């Protein structure tokens, strides 16, 4: 006999069973949307790779040069460390530029080539589409650049070891000095928190302008902040907004300023800062995330109204 309570539990089980595939279906649409983005914007992963290859090539020349003067060069910590810092900075800088380019182009590009009509003819919501586009600069590019940097630095170490082998310089010294593991941790922290979370409002603004601009999104992205800075300077003779923007790009005050040319002691000091406690109590972070959420919500809404240009 079916009692009312049985009926309720059965129907609940039914909704739960339906809810689980719905979540899977949502995740599936999201993952396919990300895959699609990477097909379209191969620049997103090719550029860091190309930067890494170019860097490795110049590093090889550097190390071969070094070997020729091996006995006249005074070996200092910097001799080893500087190229590693440079490699990190180069790949990170590339990631930032590519991320900015991507977020400015993605929603504008689909309107320009009219393919938005094709994407909208498929059962993918505007929310899924915009979130997948946001994931590229916020998650994919930082993680991918991190991986590229780590592999690059590992190859650099291996290259220097091979070149210096038999030249009388101890290679174990090299591996210790470069503090490979510590550097990796700090870099991962930097990529995920600063590039992922701290920059979120910047990418959100770019996406919004990409969805909104009737043409030339780069102009629309730069012009409003520029005008605000100008008006503020003229009317109040202050530069708060300019500093505000600059600070957003510089990263939060509490981030461990990373330098591989620090002593092991200093490394330990900075390692303690890796606990993201300071970062997550920073009001600037939360303010930025709220602003980013508003930009993204506006972008989702705009995409719904947008058709080909």
């Amino acid at each position, binding site marked *: 006999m079916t009692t009312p309570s049985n009926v309720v539990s059965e129907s609940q089980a039914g909704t739960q069973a339906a809810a689980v595939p719905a979540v899977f279906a949502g995740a599936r649409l999201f993952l396919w949307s990300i895959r699609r983005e990477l097909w379209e914007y191969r620049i997103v992963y090719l550029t860091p790779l190309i930067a890494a290859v170019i860097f490795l090539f110049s590093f090889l020349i550097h190390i071969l040069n070094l070997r020729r003067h091996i006995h006249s060069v005074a070996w200092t910590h910097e001799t080893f460390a500087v190229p590693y810092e440079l490699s990190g900075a180069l790949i990170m800088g590339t990631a930032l530029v590519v991320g900015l380019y991507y977020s400015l182009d993605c929603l504008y590009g689909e309107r320009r080539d009219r393919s938005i009509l094709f994407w*909208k003819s498929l059962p993918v919501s505007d929310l899924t589409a915009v979130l997948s586009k946001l994931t590229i600069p916020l998650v994919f590019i930082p993680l991918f650049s991190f991986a590229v940097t780590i592999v690059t630095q590992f190859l650099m170490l291996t290259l220097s070891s091979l070149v210096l082998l038999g030249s009388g310089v101890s290679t174990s010294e090299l591996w210790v000095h470069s503090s490979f593991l510590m550097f990796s941790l700090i870099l991962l922290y930097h990529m995920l928190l600063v590039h992922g979370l701290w920059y979120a409002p910047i990418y959100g603004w770019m996406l919004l302008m990409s969805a909104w601009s009737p043409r030339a999104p780069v102009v629309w992205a730069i012009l409003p902040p520029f005008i605000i800075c100008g008006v503020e300077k003229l009317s109040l003779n202050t530069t708060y907004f300019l500093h505000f923007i600059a600070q957003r790009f510089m990263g939060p005050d509490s981030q461990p300023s990373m330098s591989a040319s620090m002593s092991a002691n200093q490394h330990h000091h900075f390692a303690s800062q890796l606990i993201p406690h300071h970062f997550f109590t920073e009001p600037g972070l939360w303010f930025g995330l709220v602003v980013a959420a508003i930009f993204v919500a506006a972008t989702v809404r705009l995409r719904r109204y947008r058709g080909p240009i």
Partner: protein
Amino acid sequence: MACIEARALRKTYGATVALDGINLRVEEGRILGLIGPNGAGKTTALNAILGLTPYQGELRVLGRDPWAERDQLMRDVCFIADVAVLPRWIRVADALEYVAGVHPRFDRTKAEMFLARTTIRLTNKVKELSKGMVTQLHLALVMAIDARLLVLDEPTLGLDLLYRKQFYDSLLTDYFDRNRTIVVTTHQVEEIEHVLTDLVFMDRGRIVLKATMEEIETRYVELAVRPERVAAARALKPIDERQVLGGNVLLFDHVDRQQLAALGDVRTPSIADLFVAVVGNNAGQAQGAVQ
């Protein structure tokens, strides 16, 4: 349940009225031709049906509100827009893979079967294909989706004669069955007239004629008369008249076929001639009213 049901559907762009209170009901299993001059509001109507534009009034497509539920509606609705909208950078194989990934009703083997009949290769990028081939690809993708409503907005625009004929042939033989509904707009009326079951003429945001093809056949008669009988024919109040070699052709609405047969040769008018008579004359009257 009707496939499309619109009541007092209205859409304005600033001062321009694109849709001026349209009432339309399309049952499932019909092939509806939406015919009208440029700027009649056909594309706006289709965009509203597809959830691409907001509107005033009431509109249900397969029981859903298109503007609020576009993504869910697109599981049952497919569309091909007026020009090739497939992204130029995508590879044919990737396009198949992506649609298979996001569309629960896409049958990949079917799409590959359709493509095998063309010269398109899976390794091609869309930008390497000709315009006709891109349309073939889009049609292959769409026909492999088990949808209930297919919307075609000028699907054969800019294609050569062979591609155009092939397009409608494959649509009819491989895709259409009595459960699916197709709504199509085109300027090449003569190509689709044997395909349609229903006809809607639009002009300046309004529907000026709405009928099934059977109704058209019983209601409208075209009469070819020799000059000496023109006066008698004109007395029966034709809605349109044109000169042809060796006589006049008059178009009648709601006039007895037998009566007309006595005056000359009668036949059912082509959609193009009917369109000129109904929409062309309306336009003339409206202009006259303004003057």
